[in-house]
């Protein structure tokens, strides 16, 4: 099972840069989700790893083996990987069994081994009773299982999944996510999953690489991304995060003393003294007993999940509006104080956000 290393991968289509300088270091047996809004380059990166696209620059290693580099291109058929396509790409002229069996036949596996492996895969995927059906006679979820069985039958060391759940309904999606986790644990294969749905990524992945505009913004565990975002994009993207402009006065032992509006507080973060972003989630905001860190004007309220979700406009801050859950109804245009109970502080360069995450390196299998 390889330890996947990519460095400096770049790709353009018709002069449009879709991937810039991608560095990635993924330990053996990891389950990586490539997460990002549509058009961020995640599928292109997956197809580069598969060998279905050729990068303009960069290198790719599976363990010690150079897969891609100057004057080197290992074709997809020699990369020992499996791939599940968004369309599933089942061969329509073959039955479910035929799909699973085909590549094994092409590799001239002895018939006994082949049949044993096909049966094993069909059983593992609960497809035994559907084995003789053609793809068009199967439902979306069943096709998905056939596609998985087909790619796992070759016992790949790396399984690539390109938005595999996009065409399934919500219920089936949860079942397939559980299935992915089970298969990942059972096979020990490295999984790379492309998705635009962060709940999906959080549910299965040991590591998530958040991508935006052709760059990897941050690689980390789901908790890293939530609690310690490296860039404002990640902070805002994960769970509808909020970023507030703040000024960092001093930094000591990873804690930043800062002012937000006219309130002062101390929070953990990676920022240097100067202008910073305070990255928050809704859970980090609370109505203050007194004046609080922020003063805000109530815009509207909605009763939701047993509390009043209150939309407020903070005073003296260049942000649109914040939402905070309170216990009672409040008149519109009244003033309340808001306490900030947690958060993470990052730099706010005058030149804009920093280009890449400080450490796109993942150390241990979480």
């Amino acid at each position, binding site marked *: 099972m390889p330890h996947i290393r990519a460095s400096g991968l770049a790709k353009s289509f018709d002069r449009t840069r879709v991937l810039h300088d991608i560095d990635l270091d993924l330990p053996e047996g990891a389950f990586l989700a490539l997460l990002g809004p549509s058009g961020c380059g995640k599928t292109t990166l997956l197809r580069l790893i598969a060998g279905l696209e050729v990068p303009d620059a960069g290198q790719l290693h599976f363990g010690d083996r150079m897969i891609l580099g100057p004057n080197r291109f290992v074709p997809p058929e020699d990369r020992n990987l499996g791939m599940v396509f968004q369309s599933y790409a089942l061969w329509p*002229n073959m039955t479910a069994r035929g799909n699973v069996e085909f590549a094994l036949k092409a590799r001239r596996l002895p018939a006994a081994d082949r049949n044993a492996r096909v049966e094993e895969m069909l059983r593992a995927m609960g497809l035994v009773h559907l084995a003789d059906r053609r793809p068009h006679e199967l439902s979306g979820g069943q096709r998905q299982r056939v596609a998985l069985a087909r790619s796992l039958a070759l016992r790949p060391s790396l399984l690539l999944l390109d938005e595999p759940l996009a065409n399934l309904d919500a219920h089936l999606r949860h079942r397939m996510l559980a299935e992915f986790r089970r298969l990942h644990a059972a096979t020990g294969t490295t999984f790379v999953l492309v998705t635009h749905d962060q709940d999906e990524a959080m549910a299965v992945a040991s590591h998530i690489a958040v991508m935006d505009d052709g760059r990897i913004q941050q690689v980390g565990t789901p908790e890293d991304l939530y609690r310690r975002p490296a860039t404002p994009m990640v902070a805002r993207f994960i769970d509808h995060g909020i970023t507030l402009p703040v000024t960092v006065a001093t930094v000591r032992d990873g804690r930043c003393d800062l002012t937000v509006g006219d309130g002062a507080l101390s929070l953990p973060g990676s920022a240097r003294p100067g202008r910073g972003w305070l990255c928050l989630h809704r859970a980090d905001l609370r109505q203050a007993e007194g004046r609080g860190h922020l003063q805000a004007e109530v815009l509207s309220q909605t009763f939701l999940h047993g509390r009043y979700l209150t939309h407020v406009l903070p005073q003296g801050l260049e942000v649109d509006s914040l939402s905070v859950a309170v216990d009672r109804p409040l008149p519109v245009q009244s003033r309340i104080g808001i306490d900030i109970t947690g958060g993470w502080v990052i730099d706010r360069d005058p030149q804009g956000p920093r280009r890449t995450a400080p450490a796109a390196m993942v150390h241990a299998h979480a």
Partner: protein
Amino acid sequence: MAAELRLLGDQRTGGGERLLAIALCAYVGLITIWPLGQLLLTAFRPGDEGQLLGVMRDTLSSRATGRAFWNTLTLSLMSVAVSVTLGGALALAVGLLRMAFRAALSFLILMPLIIPSQVTALAWIELLGTQSPILSPLGLAPAPGSGNPLYSGFGIALVMGIEHMPLVFIAIRAALKSLPADLVEAARIAAIAPRLVLARIILPVTLPSALAGALLAFTAAVGNFGVPALLGIPGRVPMLTTLIYQRLNGFGPSAAGQVAVLALILTLMAVAALALRGLLMRHLTMRIEDGRRFRSGRRAPLWAQGLMWAAVLVIAVLPLTALVLTSLVPAIGVPFSVEVASLEQYRAVLANDAVARAFANSLMLSCAAALICALVALPLAYLATHRPGPAVAAIDLLAEAPWVVPGTVVALAMILAFLPPLPGIGVSLYGTAAIILIAYLARFLPLVLRPVAAAAQGGDPALDEAARIAGIGLSVRLGRIFAPSVLPAALAGAVLIVMTAMNELTLSALLWSSGQETIGVMVFSLQYEGNSTAAAAVSVLSTLLLFALCALADLLGRRGGDVLPWRG
């Protein structure tokens, strides 16, 4: 190495795919690019005394060239007028009025396109000749000795116009089919009279298609050989295609330079019309929003239905009937009547070795051409879709050329390329069936390549990618993944090739030799020798064979999509 990499694809392109691309380049280069290149070189050759472009200057200044060019231009334009009038009226009637037996009517209207030119010409000759089995009993036939009125420029224009009428019909019919119902309904709600709806809304929307169809008919007329050969040669009305044929027949290869120039003029006329068509389609075609399609609820009045059936009767049924009746006459010169009708002609032609040989040759050649073209189209469409590179794109485009230029030009190019003994073997292909086969392979490849490429483009590229990732090699991918996905299109295209090649005359008229007759050549030479009853019998037999193939193609077409002109 790097340049070769780029030409044949990129790093993803595997070694097998590279070899395949090189083999296909060699194939298309040999059967298409080299012959057409030879033609160009010959046309631009210096004169006998080495004057620059001497051959071209001599040919262009000759009176015969001028006359043939003028005839080709004017008669083609006249035939287009016939095609547009007939095809336009029929398409509007079929498209805008509801009537019984519409499908049967459509099929009969398209028949002139399916029947080969020489058979159409022969059928009309029989219909309007002094011996006409249909007009004579009615007392309408031309007086004996007065000659056939079709042996004239007018006759050529009329018969070509009828033959190419379906091209205009198809174009206008397609435009009417895509007319959104909203346009007409909006006008009717605004209380606009039906006459104005037709004149100001429906006709303007169909006009670009009508023009495009007309230009296609012009291209077909310019390149037509069967009609001018059967009507123009006896009528002494030379056209470019027949002039090339007569020059080559009369003077042999020494006339190569001259006829190459004639072929170049022919090509320019055809290509100019097609280029104009492309321009029109780009600039005139109106962007019409998608929506529910317009379907008229108006029933055709009886007079209109009667008129249409009468037109179809004259266009499609009467000439063929005349042909069949002529073939039942026991001997030339005997007027047709039920009492004398016999199958004597059929017995005679079937006993004739040359006729039997012609049927065998045409069947073999067209089936071989269909098979080889399909086998070439599969990997070519595969590479063009999945591994595009400049080299594959270029041959994909150039493979189209022999279908775009008139058939006479292709035949001449084959003679120029394959008359000299092949290097190494020292044998000339001229005079063998091989040269006819190569001409068929070059000319008819697009008939199967287009539908296969379209099917490949519409397919899911992940099917092939999944197989590649699973480590499946090129030949298995081609045979087990790609071929099944485009099989219906390939089959329909192959049947279309058999249908077209089996009855063609244009290519084999120039390329045949004794022992290598084709059905088209047989009809032509029997008629040329004056044995019109035998020619009629052979024509009827070949038409029956064609209808059998139509039925087969229709069966396959049900699965292959709208490759066939009368479907959809």
